[in-house]
């Protein structure tokens, strides 16, 4: 019994000791005096005038990112900056991957948010973030010099990075639209000369490849557990002029998806789809492709890095345009802006923070970023400076003239599953009635849209002169009914 007691005492002592050593070195607490509204959001904080740089004092700029794949390069770039600006500005570069957006909002409410953070299209709802005073417009800081690299007019996407005149982040990189990625050797083996131009051709080719594959190689792959619908089916619908939202009438309409769902279901029932696709995550799919077991799959420019460094492809692979329903391109292919640096409202020194954004978006940093193959640049000025020989494969993903950023239609939450989940499930080989499913989906989304517009949660977007191939000259009308 004595022994028992003694052990606990030593345990306690060790623990306390450990505690003091570990906790003792945590950084001193900043006073958290951010006023808070009931929902834990910050009321407008006038911090722009405050904290003007004191001479001779090093300013710390806290930068967050959730990208780990470019970490090595970014850390090098940050170290260069810190060395050059010693005594003036010091970047603290933190990678937070899990719960990223949650962490930012919580950081704001506890006054420990980053000064600037890396973001991309659709990572958070811009309007909510702006309304809750999490981020601030960059307009007052943007210099002429910056505008010469980044064409702000072309890079402003309403409700994605811009609200009216206010621009909240300037994307430095652009993910390409999706492409069809195919195994050249399997195409040869199946006697197929060129990648498919139409969806029925794709279905046909997938079948042929599977037939000569001898139960090892399959025609096509889609990762059922990682955004399956968005990889091949949705882009193919896009270029065929089919989308979930009827911009002209300002309501949802899913009826156009039927042929795409039927084609996918056909590939399942004909066995052209790699077994297990329904529960596959994207990485196993990539590996099976790199091993030469899959004829075709679809993804955007990030696959270059994956198929050359992470899962080096063991055969020659090609990149082709996403096939449309009938070979005609009737709609734009969605290509999303990436790697933008947003400034929070709790920034300590906005001038210093802007300098950091400017540096991270500069030619110096971005050219290297693109040459490393992390992404395509959003700026043609950057692209011109890039050594093309270093990005040969990436160049195959280069911008097509029918690629664009779609106008952000109102995002509503219907009673039931999200539309991409429903549509993907309709693709699976079951006896689910496609017409009925699409009809119900349209109905539930429009009910939700009506309800949420009424509540004032969202606004109905109507584009009377909607052109599915070109959005830059459209007139946006937002309705409260």
């Amino acid at each position, binding site marked *: 019994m004595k022994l028992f007691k003694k052990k606990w005492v030593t345990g306690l002592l060790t623990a306390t000791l450990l505690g003091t050593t570990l906790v003792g070195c945590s950084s001193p607490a900043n006073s958290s005096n951010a006023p808070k509204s009931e*929902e834990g*959001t910050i009321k407008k904080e006038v911090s722009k005038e405050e904290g003007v740089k004191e001479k001779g004092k090093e300013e710390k700029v806290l930068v967050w990112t959730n990208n780990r794949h470019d970490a090595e390069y970014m850390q090098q770039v940050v170290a260069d900056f810190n060395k050059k600006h010693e005594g003036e500005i010091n970047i603290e570069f933190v990678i937070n991957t899990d719960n990223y957006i949650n962490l930012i*909002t919580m950081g704001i409410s506890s006054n420990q948010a980053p000064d600037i953070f890396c973001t991309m299209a*659709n990572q958070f*709802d811009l309007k*909510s*973030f702006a*309304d*809750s005073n999490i981020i601030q417009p960059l307009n007052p800081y943007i210099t002429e010099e910056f505008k010469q690299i980044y064409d702000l007019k072309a890079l402003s996407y309403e409700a994605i990075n811009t609200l009216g005149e206010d621009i909240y982040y300037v994307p430095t990189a652009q993910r390409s639209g999706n492409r069809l990625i195919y195994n050249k050797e399997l195409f040869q083996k199946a006697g197929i000369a060129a990648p498919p131009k139409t969806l029925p051709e794709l279905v046909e080719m997938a079948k042929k490849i599977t037939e000569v594959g001898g139960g090892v190689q399959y025609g096509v792959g889609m990762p*059922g*557990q*990682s*955004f*399956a*619908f*968005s990889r091949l089916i949705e882009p193919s619908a896009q270029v065929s002029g089919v989308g979930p939202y009827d911009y002209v009438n300002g309501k949802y309409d899913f009826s156009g998806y039927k042929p795409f769902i039927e084609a996918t279901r056909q590939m399942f029932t004909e066995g052209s789809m*790699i*077994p*297990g*696709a*329904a*529960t*596959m*995550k994207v990485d*196993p799919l990539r590996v*099976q492709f790199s091993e030469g*077991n899959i004829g075709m799959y679809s993804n955007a420019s990030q696959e270059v890095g994956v198929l050359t460094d992470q899962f080096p492809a063991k055969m020659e692979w090609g990149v082709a345009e996403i096939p449309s329903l009938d070979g005609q391109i009737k709609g734009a292919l969605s290509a999303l802006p990436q790697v933008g640096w947003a400034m929070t409202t709790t920034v300590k020194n906005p001038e210093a923070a802007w300098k950091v954004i400017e540096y991270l978006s500069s030619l110096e940093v971005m050219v290297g970023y693109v040459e490393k193959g992390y992404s395509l640049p959003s700026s043609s000025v950057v692209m011109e400076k890039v050594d093309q020989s270093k990005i040969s494969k990436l160049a195959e993903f280069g911008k097509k003239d029918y690629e664009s950023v779609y106008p952000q239609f109102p*995002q*509503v*939450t219907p*009673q*039931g*599953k*999200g539309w*991409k*989940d429903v549509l*993907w*499930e309709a693709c*699976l080989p*079951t006896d689910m009635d496609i017409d009925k499913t699409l009809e119900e989906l349209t109905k539930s989304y429009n009910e939700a849209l009506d309800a949420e517009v009424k*509540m*004032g*949660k969202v606004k109905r977007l109507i584009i009377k002169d909607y052109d599915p191939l070109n959005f830059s000259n459209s007139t946006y009308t937002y309705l409260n009914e």
Partner: protein
Amino acid sequence: MSTLTSGFNKYKSKLQNSKGIKGGWDIPLILMMLPTIVLLAVVSIYPFMWLLKYVFYDYNGFKTYFIGLDNFKRVFTNDPIYWKSVVHTFEYAFLKLLFTMPISLMVAVVLNHHLKGKNLFRIIFFIPTVISAAVYSLIFYFIYSPYNGILNNMLMEWGWITAPIDWLGSSAIAMSSVVIVAIWGGFGNYMILFLAGLQSISQEVYESADIDGASKVQSFFQITIPMLGPILKVVLLLAITTALKDYQSIMVLTGGGPLDRTQVMFLYVYQLMFGNENSAAGQLQIGYGATVGLVSSIIIGIATAVFLKLSKKLDNIY
């Protein structure tokens, strides 16, 4: 045999005659209960109340919109997925307990005896419980892989199956596959609890039973089970609560699929509140998630009450 029963009865009556020492709150009692009460209030009740107010709202994490009883209307009239998930939750919990409880009890009893290598076995059976669910579920995800997966390949090499099985993608077997992972990850846990419970049984009882010529099986049913009574009840209740709340591993393995076949209550709540990591991130539905969570808690509460009632009856039998 008769000495054994009488000896045991004597021991048992000792336990039963001991009612709690009556009395109100006094200083030592207050001091000893205070941390529990404070922690309960702060860590459990407060967040629950915080959440509860949103059952009348549409809340996406930033803004609230008062919608009255719409959330309840939706749960009860227009949410077939949820009610499917309720059935699946009980199916999952039942299957999980059906296997984990007997396995862990047997293993604990066996490893409580002087057996060669028992320490090694104890360590091995414990290892799964120290691997976080997020990681071990991924391991099984790879093992189960229908295309070129190690399990399918092995079974085919042995000639047990002729074609690969889609362990997680087929509606018919996805639930079983998920339950196997749950058994793997869970039985070590309950083994530990049972081992601890077994320590409260005096070795002398077994010795006297042995002298009386009782077989191991006999002493298991006539000594171990009754003597474990209180702790058995506790472990069972714990196991039920855990099983009904499990969702992490299912989230990694199937994400609730195929076609909601493995969707369970709290995975559904999680997806409403935090979004579905496998598909497009829609708006969060915290208000509705809170409502579903509340309804689920009530359902589980009823299940517990039934269990407690039944276990009281069990007490009377022994």
